[in-house]
Every structure is written in structure tokens, then in C-alpha cells.
């Protein structure tokens, strides 16, 4: 029988790998996919506890999370296209126009 802890282990692993990806990588696509991975881990945790308590509210919350991720995808990817067109790079370290204006 699969225990609650094994599901929690998988979802925490996905979440942690997402956090590590945001910390360690500089490619903006990988950072975006890491954020998606964190949302996925949280979704798995919510659905596990929905089954554990036999209650459907967490599943509704994870549907909301998926909808927000879809909205985020549209805006984020158009911002990436704009930045890539103007800077010809995917490095997050040079996307500093909001903080440093005239510099760089």
C-alpha cells in the first residue's frame, strides 16, 4: 500500500528541485519551468490531501492553480519574447532595466 509519506516525498522533491532551479540557473526559460515545477509539486500535495480527507476542496484549489499557471504562461512568454528581441540573450543577469535604467 502506498503511504501518505511517499506522495509527500515526491511532491516535496518536485518543489525543492523547482526552488533549486530558480536559485542555480540563469537561463530565463529554465527559471520559468522551475516555477511551473514548484506549482506542480504543490498541486500533488493538495490532491494527496484531498484523497486523504476525502474532500474535494483541495482539488478545486489545484484547478485554480492550473488556471493561474496558464495565465502566467501567456504573459511570461510574451515578456520573454520582448526581452529576447531587444537584448538577444536569455541571461537573467542582464535584464536589469527596471532597477538600473540608463546603465548596462
Amino acid at each position, binding site marked *: 500500500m*502506498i*503511504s*501518505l*509519506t*511517499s506522495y*509527500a*516525498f*515526491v511532491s*516535496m*522533491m*518536485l518543489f*525543492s*528541485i*523547482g*526552488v*533549486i*532551479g530558480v536559485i*542555480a*540557473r*540563469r*537561463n530565463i*526559460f*529554465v527559471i520559468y*519551468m*522551475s516555477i*511551473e*515545477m514548484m506549482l506542480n509539486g504543490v*498541486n*500533488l500535495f493538495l*490532491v*494527496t490531501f*484531498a*484523497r*486523504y480527507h476525502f474532500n*474535494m476542496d483541495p*482539488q*478545486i484549489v489545484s*484547478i*485554480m492553480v*492550473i*488556471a*493561474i*499557471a*496558464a*495565465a502566467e*504562461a*501567456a*504573459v511570461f512568454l*510574451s515578456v520573454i*519574447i*520582448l*526581452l529576447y528581441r*531587444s*537584448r*538577444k*540573450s*536569455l*541571461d537573467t543577469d542582464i535584464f536589469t*532595466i527596471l532597477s538600473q535604467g540608463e546603465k*548596462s
Partner: protein
Amino acid sequence: MVDFIFIGLSIMAIAGAIAMIIYKNPMYSALGVLISMLSVAGMFALLNATFLFLVQIIVYAGAIMTLILFILMFLNINDEDLPAEPKKFKLIALGAAVMIPLNVLILSAVSKLPEKDLSITETDFGDIKPIGIELFDNWLVAFELISILLLIALLGSVVLAKKRKSKIKKQGE
């Protein structure tokens, strides 16, 4: 039987996530994320969430990851455009050192909870109809707000992606 499916799915999910942060080329990273999301969808099916299983495959694997792959191919990124990441593995070790105590804390808290049977049931738990009734009974305001959010995201992406004179200074000018 279900145990072996779960073990295979979890190994695939974690391996896909690790492939995402290891590979330098974002195309391989996107394929790793795709594998990971499909495995999570399989786990949703094991947890009796049939509607979420469908939504995960259609929206995440079908729409979002396809959009990312499309944009990656559309931008046609060369290897020299990719950022150099000399400190990647050092930072991965640092992040793991931060996240492992949190993992141990949460997993020890979860393992103290009383065990319940999490196997697949014959009831209609997680089907489309009960989910819809639940959604429109108790979560109507959130549902409407989500629809407004999606509309605003649509408008925002159209406005951002519109062809116009860029005010951002080009590098090297």
C-alpha cells in the same frame, strides 16, 4: 501492481525534474519537464482525481509545455546565446543544503499523521460532475475572478506582443 506503477511514476517525475536543472540546452529541460508533468498526471489518476488527471494532461502537458517548446523553436536560440553558468553545480549544492532541512521537517510532520487507505475507490470522488457541483456551489466567486484574470492575461499578452517601436535600449548602442 499499483505500487509498481507509483514507484515508476515517481522515479520518472523526479528524474525529469533533475534533467530540467542539469541540462544546459532549454529544449532538453522542456522535455524533462514534460515527462515530469505526465508522471504527475499519472499520480493524480492513482489518487482518484480523474478530472485533474485530464486537466493536467490537456492544460500543462498539452498547452503550456507546447507553448514553451513553440517559443523555444521560434526564437531559434544558438548555443552562444545561452548564458554561461560556471557556478551552476555549486549553487545547486547550496540550494540543496537549504532545502534538505525543510524537506526533513515536513516529511517528519507528515509521517506522524495517522495512516489511511489511499487506494483507488469505486465512488465518483473526483469525477467531473461532483467537481462541477462543488465548484459552482462553494467556489463561485473564485471561479469568476479566475475568468477575469484569464481575460486580463489575454489582453496583457496581446498588448505586450504587439509590434511597436521598442523603448528598451539595445545593448551596445
